[in-house]
């Protein structure tokens, strides 16, 4: 959060609770630069009084082969969640600390993990991508071969369909940061080979309607993917944020299905088996199906719904006194680009439209911002996103009403943060 005691003149309120007009952002910036100019006059006795730190008195460190975050940032880590602890260590997750990040791209080392059987110790030289089943020419490709194919680059989010599960099922809101509450979501620039090119090379037959994607990991994680999606925008990603995919994300190759639930974006992908019907693998039979309020279930719920989250401020943070802040957060949808994000500071009584920080990519995180004058009164902050299809985030009670109480998948409800007069920011269901 940025807190400044110097307020632009005549606040231009956009909604209740101190939400300011988006124009204030620009005006503030202009005022700042003008002030910078005026201050250019040289202070006369600066040398005598100002501190000269030791690092400007010695030569700095030499170049290094691979840069790391500043030592002082070492506590910016993924939050590790191990549902069964030591008993089943290979079943472990880690969540992206969104409350410590301020852009849209997730640093590769902070990309979330959901491992169903751990991260394999895989030898890339012996890794193969096989394409077989209902094809005229079964083929295999190694990494060197795939390197020579035409590639695409695109920014896309990945979200575990179980993201935000604590909020979905806990009777009382858990007090934790965005890493625990919403961390099974990340956003990267991915580069790789369109699956369509590979399926066409293998000669996919008309009766091939589904493709089983299998990972080269301990559980050989498998998902059935409709051919339509694979022929549309799916690709075999080899690069993540410009460098080879991290081991946690599927090194040396993973399936990327823009907008579809994380589990289907099979990591360490080794096989595309073309079939005439879905195999009903374990994940599409139980774990990634949803039980509805009436006891029936939905299966093959692939695309992730529209969702957003205020990251600054957010739970576990403390406000540093009344004054000016910039509210900032992320919005995304599996159905297309984000069209609009609205923010409320009074629990939904009034809303103001936030500034979207472009370019707004489809099926990618979009950063939104809005200036805020917090007077030190209790506030209830919310963000509500709408995507290009017109879909809008539900409230938690609307979402809960659709499902069986046990369901924790595809939770995309509005997240309210309570700001207390003392400046504590808390998770509430409101």
């Amino acid at each position: 959060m940025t807190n400044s005691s110097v307020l632009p003149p005549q606040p231009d309120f956009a909604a209740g609770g101190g939400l300011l007009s988006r124009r204030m952002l620009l005006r503030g910036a202009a005022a700042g630069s003008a002030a910078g100019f005026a201050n250019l006059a040289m202070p006369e006795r600066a040398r005598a009084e100002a501190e000269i730190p030791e690092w400007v008195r010695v030569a700095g460190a030499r170049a290094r082969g691979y840069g790391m975050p500043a030592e002082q940032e070492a506590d910016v880590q993924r939050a590790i969640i191990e549902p069964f602890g030591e008993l089943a260590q290979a079943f472990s997750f880690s969540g992206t600390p969104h409350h410590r990040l301020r852009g849209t791209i997730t640093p590769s080392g902070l990309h979330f993990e959901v491992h169903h059987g751990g991260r394999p110790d895989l030898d890339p030289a012996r890794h193969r991508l096989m394409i077989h089943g209902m094809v005229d020419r079964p083929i295999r490709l190694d990494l060197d071969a795939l390197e020579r194919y035409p590639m695409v680059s695109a920014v896309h989010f990945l979200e575990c369909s179980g993201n935000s599960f604590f909020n979905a099922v806990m009777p009382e809101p858990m007090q934790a940061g965005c890493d625990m509450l919403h961390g099974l979501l990340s956003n990267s620039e991915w580069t790789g080979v369109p699956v369509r090119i590979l399926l066409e090379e293998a000669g996919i037959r008309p009766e091939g309607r589904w493709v089983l994607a299998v990972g080269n990991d301990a559980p050989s994680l498998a998902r059935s993917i409709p051919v339509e999606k694979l022929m549309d925008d799916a690709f075999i990603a080899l690069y993540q944020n410009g460098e080879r995919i991290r081991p946690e994300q599927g090194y040396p190759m993973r399936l990327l299905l823009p907008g579809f639930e994380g589990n289907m974006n099979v990591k360490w992908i080794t096989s595309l088996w073309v079939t005439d019907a879905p195999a009903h693998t374990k994940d599409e039979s139980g774990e990634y199906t949803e039980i509805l309020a009436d006891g029936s279930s939905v299966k093959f719920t692939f695309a992730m719904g529209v969702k957003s989250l205020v990251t600054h401020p957010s739970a576990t943070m403390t406000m540093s006194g009344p004054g000016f802040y910039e509210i900032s957060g992320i919005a995304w949808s599996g159905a297309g680009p984000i069209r609009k994000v609205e923010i409320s500071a009074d629990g939904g009584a009034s809303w103001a439209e936030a500034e979207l920080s472009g370019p707004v990519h489809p099926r990618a995180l979009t950063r939104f911002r809005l200036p805020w004058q917090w007077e030190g009164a209790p506030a209830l902050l919310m963000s509500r996103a709408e995507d290009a299809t017109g879909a809008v985030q539900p409230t938690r009670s609307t979402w809960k009403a659709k499902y069986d109480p046990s369901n924790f998948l595809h939770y995309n409800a509005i997240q309210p943060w309570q700001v207390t007069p003392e400046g504590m920011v808390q998770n509430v269901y409101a």
Partner: protein
Amino acid sequence: MSMRSLIATALVVSLADLAAAEGPGLGAPLAADEIPFYATYVMPDGRGLPAGSGTAAEGAGIYAAKCALCHGATGVEGPVMPPVGPNDVWAKPAGRYWPYATTIFDYVRRAMPLDEPKSLSDAEAYALTAFILSRNGVIGEGDAMSAQTLPDVVMPNRENFVDVWATQGVTPW
């Protein structure tokens, strides 16, 4: 046909040829014996099931030795996703919630036990499948599971699913 539309047609045709071979075509021929079993999946109609068979009685001993630690002594305790239901831990117990019994066989054979996947023989996987189904009351205690019998098992929750992809495609539910 005018010259211009002739050229246009020719262009479309050659572009189509190009599209058919968009990549460099570097895929090496894949022989059937290079494909491990887990690169495919046993289908609900039984395609892909191997020879062999197993009963719940045979499965009980294997379960106690290799599965009970995580999934519970009788399959309902957990702590990890108990496969027998109803239970107080997991609303989707594999042996009664999953729509097809073939999935139990395939999943157990490829992925379980967690720390030693692919260590079970086909007969052991059949026996464990029979054990889980029998504990759920889906098959009789003495019923042997095999390539012949497993596809015929009617799972009680099968007709209780709506296929969202079939009904609304990519639109989020």
